[in-house]
């Protein structure tokens, strides 16, 4: 092991002198507390180290020991259902209520291992050699590390083993034998290899109407959620973590609030995953580096999270990664870069901000894994722009790399209109690809209805500007009808409270029923207006209020009630039209 001695310290950055060998990005342990750090630069005898923990009390002369390995995390089947810090050290099981610096407790606990290979089998990189059956029958696959291959020399019989205990021995082509455990180390900054990448063809069903129907993201795609403080980024990400149709959720709290992490940890075990009927926590990994935890570890946490996501993908799973917030990560990058004395660029961020963002989002994909299965990582990142101004560097660079952009709006949030996604600023580049999926899932009109809704919302913005000049009543009836219908789309369809037990998640079938009902309502409303009805006449019908409240009133179990409501709408507006036509006929006759 190489050693170095501290020469200079300031905050999380150390300069040390050594005559040993260190490698760039090598993980190191600093001082008697064994603080975790990473080599970020080498210059002759000097190494510069970034420390991931509180450096209080360190002095010149203190010894730094190289680990000979890049900064790596241990990925394995024991991750699911647990909470970790930014470097994937368990936060549970600490004796203190406070985070103390120094090497954290290792993951403990035994896992039931079932071998799937026999002595003499040849295993390729990333091959599956066993299974672990967890609570509720969830099966995880044990993977040969992506950088190992060879012939099975020994394999442990079925039984209970520690996650990092050797259960397999492989002899490589050079004749060397390597022990393999259920878990393995992987360098966080290195994307895990795959056989090939595939284009995304299916949407990630988020259970949020405004996303699934207006701004869908592909499974294996990338989405950004920018918004000022309090506009609903975290609540939306949490709603997605609860309601989206991924197999595994990796939830990263990066520089955000401690209470939010505690909230997730308290709520998820109580909620059930609608697909498996098991507690949501069983499909979730939480990574928490809160705003008051060391900044350098915040920089690393985003890589830990995406590495964990890739690990589950490599098991042939569909993974959704929620990162809240990527701005805090970028700020950590800025802060640490400043300490190195690097030249600041735009907004004080280092010039490589853009390429680092690109690297991160590039790790989202649908892939064929080394073991030949299909898996995906979908990345959704929150952005916290200063004063909610989307022209700042993190938002503008991210925009170049994501396909779905869900812009949150202060005005909607202030009116408690949630999710406060602004339909005019948001977009989804892949939307057209999903028409087929929706058609196969019972909604062939999805494309037409989506277009209709978006047009209504566009027109609404234009007409409201006009109304501000001439007054709403001065608008022609036709335009007032447009406003009326747009309001219906907003209130009855787009509004969806994450706190409502009935409405917080909507299945594609329920979304489609609501979409069709509103589409039909707008046609009927038009016919009524053509027949001479006023908008107040429509609003006075009992079905109007029922449509406005259908999200809150009609749950997943009684989808047939949408049919009944649609019939009521037909009947009531039909009667209105008839009445008007009768009166029209009478006036023409008289």
């Amino acid at each position: 092991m190489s050693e170095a001695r501290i020469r200079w310290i300031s905050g999380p950055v150390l300069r040390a002198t050594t005559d040993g060998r260190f490698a760039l990005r090598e993980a190191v342990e600093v001082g008697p507390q064994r603080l975790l750090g990473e080599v970020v630069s080498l210059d002759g005898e000097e190494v510069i180290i970034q420390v991931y923990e509180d450096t209080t009390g360190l002095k010149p002369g203190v010894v730094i020991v190289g680990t000979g390995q890049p900064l790596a995390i241990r990925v394995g089947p024991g991750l699911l259902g647990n909470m970790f810090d930014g470097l994937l050290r368990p936060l549970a099981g600490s004796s203190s209520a406070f985070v103390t610096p120094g090497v954290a407790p290792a993951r403990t606990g035994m896992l039931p291992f079932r071998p799937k290979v026999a002595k003499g089998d040849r295993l390729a990189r990333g091959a599956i050699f066993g299974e672990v059956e967890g609570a509720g029958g969830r099966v995880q696959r044990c993977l040969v590390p992506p950088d190992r291959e060879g012939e099975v020399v020994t394999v442990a019989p079925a039984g209970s083993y520690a996650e990092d205990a050797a259960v397999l021995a492989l002899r490589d082509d050079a004749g060397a034998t390597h022990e393999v455990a259920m878990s393995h180390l992987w360098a966080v900054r290195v994307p895990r290899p795959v056989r090939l990448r595939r284009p995304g063809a299916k949407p990630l069903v988020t259970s949020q109407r405004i996303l699934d129907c207006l701004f869908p993201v592909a499974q294996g795609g990338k989405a950004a959620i920018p918004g000022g403080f309090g506009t609903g980024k975290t609540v939306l990400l949490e709603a997605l973590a609860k309601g989206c149709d991924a197999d595994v959720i990796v939830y990263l709290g990066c520089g955000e609030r401690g209470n939010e992490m505690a909230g997730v940890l308290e709520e998820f075990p109580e909620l059930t995953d609608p697909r498996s009927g098991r507690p949501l926590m069983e499909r979730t990994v939480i990574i928490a580096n809160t705003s008051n935890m060391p900044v350098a570890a915040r920089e690393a946490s985003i890589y830990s999270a995406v590495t964990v996501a890739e690990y589950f993908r490599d098991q042939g799973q569909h993974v959704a990664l929620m990162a809240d917030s990527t701005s805090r990560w970028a700020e950590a990058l800025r802060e640490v870069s400043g300490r190195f004395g690097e030249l600041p660029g735009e907004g004080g961020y280092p010039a490589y901000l853009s390429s680092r963002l690109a690297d991160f989002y590039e790790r989202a994909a649908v892939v064929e894994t080394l073991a030949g299965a299909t898996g995906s990582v979908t990345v959704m990142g929150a952005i916290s722009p200063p004063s909610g101004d989307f022209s700042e560097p993190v938002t503008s660079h991210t925009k170049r790399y994501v396909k779905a952009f869900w812009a949150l709006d202060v005005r909607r949030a202030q009116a408690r209109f949630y999710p406060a996604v602004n339909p005019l600023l948001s977009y989804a580049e892949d939307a057209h690809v999903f028409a087929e999926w929706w058609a196969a899932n019972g909604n062939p009109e999805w494309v037409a209805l989506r277009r209709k809704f978006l047009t209504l919302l566009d027109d609404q913005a234009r007409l409201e500007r006009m109304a501000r000049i001439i007054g709403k009543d001065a608008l022609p009836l036709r335009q007032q009808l447009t406003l009326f219908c747009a309001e219906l789309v907003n209130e009855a369809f787009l509004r969806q409270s994450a706190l409502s037990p009935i409405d917080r998640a909507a299945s594609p079938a329920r979304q489609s029923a609501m979409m069709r009902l509103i589409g039909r309502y707008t046609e009927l409303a038009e016919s009524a207006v053509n027949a001479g009805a006023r908008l107040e006449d429509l609003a006075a019908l009992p079905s109007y209020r029922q449509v406005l409240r259908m999200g809150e009133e009609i749950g997943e179990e009684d989808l047939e009630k949408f049919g009944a409501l649609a019939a009521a709408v037909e009947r009531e507006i039909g009667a209105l039209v008839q009445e008007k036509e009768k009166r029209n006929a009478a006036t023409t006759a008289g």
Partner: protein
Amino acid sequence: MQPRLLVEGAARKLDGPLLFLRRTLEVGLNDAVEVRGRDGRARLGRVAALDEESMTIEVLENTSGLGLAESVVRFFGEPLNFPLGPGILGRVFNGVGQVVDGGPPIAARENYRIEGMPINPFARATPRDFIETGVTAIDLMNSLVRGQKLPIFSGGGLPHDRIAVEIAGHARLRKGKGGDFAIVFAGIGVPFDTAEFFRASLEKSGALERTALFLNLASDSSTQRLLTPRFALTAAEYLAFVEGKHVLVILTDLTNYCEALREVSSSKGEIPSRKGFPGYMYSDLATLYERAGCIKGYPGTLTQLPILTMPADDIGHPIPDLTGYITEGQIVLSRDLDRRGVYPPINVLPCLSRLMKDGTGGKYTDPDHPALSSQLYAAYARAAQTRVLASVVGEEGLSAADRKYLAFGGEFEGTLVNQTSARSLDESMAVGWDLLKALPKTELTRLSDRQIAEHVEK
């Protein structure tokens, strides 16, 4: 803290708050020091950077009057600590934790690091207990819960001090009698009369004996302002997590704190971020605000009510902006409402309490409380839009429904936000239901038919 080592004549350079010394002894990063100049005044500082030959001391108090040759530096051999023990309530401290009320020193049991330690998110318990403040715009619309950090965004000359004192005096659990909270008050760069106002008001309400006051006055060193909230929060953590009390911390004015941070940063020659504030201001503020919360297995809780004045009333200014990104909501005061005589002049639209969802509803307050609040929000937001419209096209240009909303907006501010004495939550809710009676029933889309029948139509 026992001063261990003394160094004299090692200073080589003094630049703003930074004192550069030859390193003649073993010290650790962030160790506390005391620098004494010719004037004999002791100034606190910490070791900010170190190498083999030299070290940089960040002096946390005014450095004018310090010289190089005659500066004496004492090293404590550990980070800045606050020795604490029973009996700190009812006492007055200066901004660096020294008793200044003429009474005996605190009988310290233990030393606590003023930087605190991050609470392990795994150990946190979700804050859930609704606190009644007596203010309708808070209790009904943006509920405060025990363990929350909820700042007041104010402006110069607005009555934030009075509101804070009233909340401190009234704060109680639902149907409680008050007196449930120990109060830690930190005045950061406040004028003497503001400090005196707080002291006198707390005394009048009888709350002074359950209050620990920390005062860094406007006349005190501005760099010391960086320490005052840390000493106050260390005392608050001690009260909450060692003595097991429910603690309400009032910090005022965070704007002075941030300005001191900017001053120190610029004298260190750091690259400034927005408006000259340092790029790490978010993380720095987080180390204060995140020291609120509840911990599993601990009986006490720590609730924060920081106050800041928005420069030029601009909520987008880095100080309120970064605060809003860290805290669990905000209460925003409006100059316009204040001018119109509304008290408390709370503009509810930009207000938010993120923990409201965890501490209201059937189990905690009233099953219909969240829906009522949401409906009032929707209606008031519409009223605000209508007001803009009316200001252009005139009231005559409005539809009948819009005119109703316009009237609703006025009533909302005049009778719901405005109040002459504290209200219980039930009283606040009654006012809210009453206001909704003036609106068309079909438009109350945030309420169920049952809620309308039970509360609005009765």
